[in-house]
């Protein structure tokens, strides 16, 4: 790790450009904008792009790339915990014998 790492402005500009480009892409491929209807794939693409953007923000803007291991691991474990919560819930709901629609 590098405590006082100074990221050059050039890197920041590149990342910003990447983020804007990805925002443009994600808007273009979205169903309400362009009418591309790929079913569930639409959702998948949108979140894949969002994840690339999030990683870029995390690594460069937030400096996770040069952050100490402990903070990085905690940050990752927070996301893991959410995955655990989501997967058990999804498992429960998917295997309920009758999913009663209360409405």
């Amino acid at each position, binding site marked *: 790790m590098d405590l006082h790492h100074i990221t050059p402005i050039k890197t920041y500009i590149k990342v910003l450009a990447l983020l804007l480009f990805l925002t443009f892409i994600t808007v273009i491929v979205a169903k309400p904008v362009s009418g591309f209807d790929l079913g569930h794939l639409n959702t998948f693409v949108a979140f894949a792009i969002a994840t690339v953007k999030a990683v870029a923000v995390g690594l460069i803007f937030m400096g996770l790339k040069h952050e100490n291991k402990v903070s990085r691991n*905690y940050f990752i474990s927070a996301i893991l915990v959410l995955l*655990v919560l989501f997967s058990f*819930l999804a*498992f429960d709901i998917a295997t309920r014998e009758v999913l009663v629609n*209360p409405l």
Partner: protein
Amino acid sequence: MSDLLGKNYINCEKGLWSWLTTLDHKRIGIMYLIAIVFFAFLGAVFSLILRYELFSAGKDFLTALQYNKVMTYHGAIMTFMVLVPGIPAVLGNILLPLQIGAKDVAFPRLNLLSWYLLILGAAIAIISLFTTGVDTGWTFYAPYSTGSAQSGTIFVVLGAFVMGLASILTGLNFIATIHQLRAKGMTFMRMPLFVWGLYATSIIQIVATPVVGITLLLLVAERVLGVGVFDPKLGGDPILFQHFFWFYSHPVVYLMVLPGMGVISEVVTAFSKKVIFGYKAIVYASVAIAGVGFLVWGHHMFVSGQSDWAGVLFSFITMFVGIPTAVKIFNWMTTLYKGSIEFRTPLLFALGFLFVFAIGGLTGLFLATLSTDMHFHDTYFVVAHFHYTMVGGAVMAVFAGLFYWWPKICGRMYNELQGQIGFAFVFIGFNVTFFPQFILGAMGMPRRYFDYLPEFEHLHAVSTVGSTIVNTGMVILFVVLYRAWKYGEIAGDNPWNATTLEWQTTSPPPHENFTKEMKVTGGPYDYA
């Protein structure tokens, strides 16, 4: 009083204001102690009201609604205000920096803020007493809590949210302290086991508490705005509330007991004058309990309407909690084996812990087994089980820790005989209170009912007598501690000849804990 003891953290500044604005972790710990003893007193009063209502069958002096409220306050106060902050905020605050050779916790101001948040949250929750009160049970299950429950529910829920924030900040502070402020030479594998217990606890505080935080906010939104997330009338799923709630509240029972286990490790090794058996095994077991604790919450929901397959999965995973827990218990027993044991009050509490917690843990297996839980669910068996783990685990450990470290905290020794008498009251009273409840539960007595069939009367009466004995014991113990603080004999710096760092400074420690830079060259329990 303190003139005999030299300059220390207690007498270095004077006046109430110097306490309310202090940044010294030891003083903040004492303030937590005072606040929590007060909350515990409130919770105990509610528990006695419950027990006396249940003393005989039929309505005695409470209506069913009043009974529900008293039961809710007992549960909510004891969990959110006593057990959750209990060991970490009192003993952890005072001892964590001392045990790792630091001058303070990483963020002293945040530490003080946590205390004020706890008080604020508690105040918000207690205000509800002057409104309609709250009758949901401490679990606030939807859709009752989102619908027809008493309107005071909002206060208690918001109070619990604010106290959750306090708990998060404490956990954050401890993790940063442990990572950043250890003395030279103290590697992770040279940390005292109490510190490891606190570390595992803090992880749970950081990752699980936000879940319950947002869930409680959603509950408030549900009541105020009718958002429909948990309300089936609006298309919501009340089981989702239980999922979110237990996702926090199951790990939180480990949050209560893990630091307690840390205390037991310290006490057992100090009073058998022997290196702890299987240091690394205990460390890994602590972390494993915290980790597995996140994967088992559904065992609270076997009869809630979650899917059968989810029930099977949660039941299966729950069994794994037994392994690290048993590892710890075997390690403590092996540490005692052939040690030069000194039966002082702290050790008695530690042995009491082993006895009570073993029963609590084993009955947990009955409840984790899907088929037997169908019978035991929502009976007194469950009530007895969690009192055996949480009161056995947390409260026995709190007293073990308080008596063990009291000479360090105030520089004076408690009266041994009086301490042991107090222990006898608590230990006997506790078992008399809760053991009959296992039998009641097995016979089919449902929990949270204010009345019961005549055949349950004898056991309920025994239980009520027991609760009176326990509470008498608690009063005795606090009087013993108070008298020690005021009039006790000077204890000396290391009355137990223990080896961890806190015993190498003066009693009570000075404001900055140590007069010189500490250096560590070996493990924490060097009794060889």
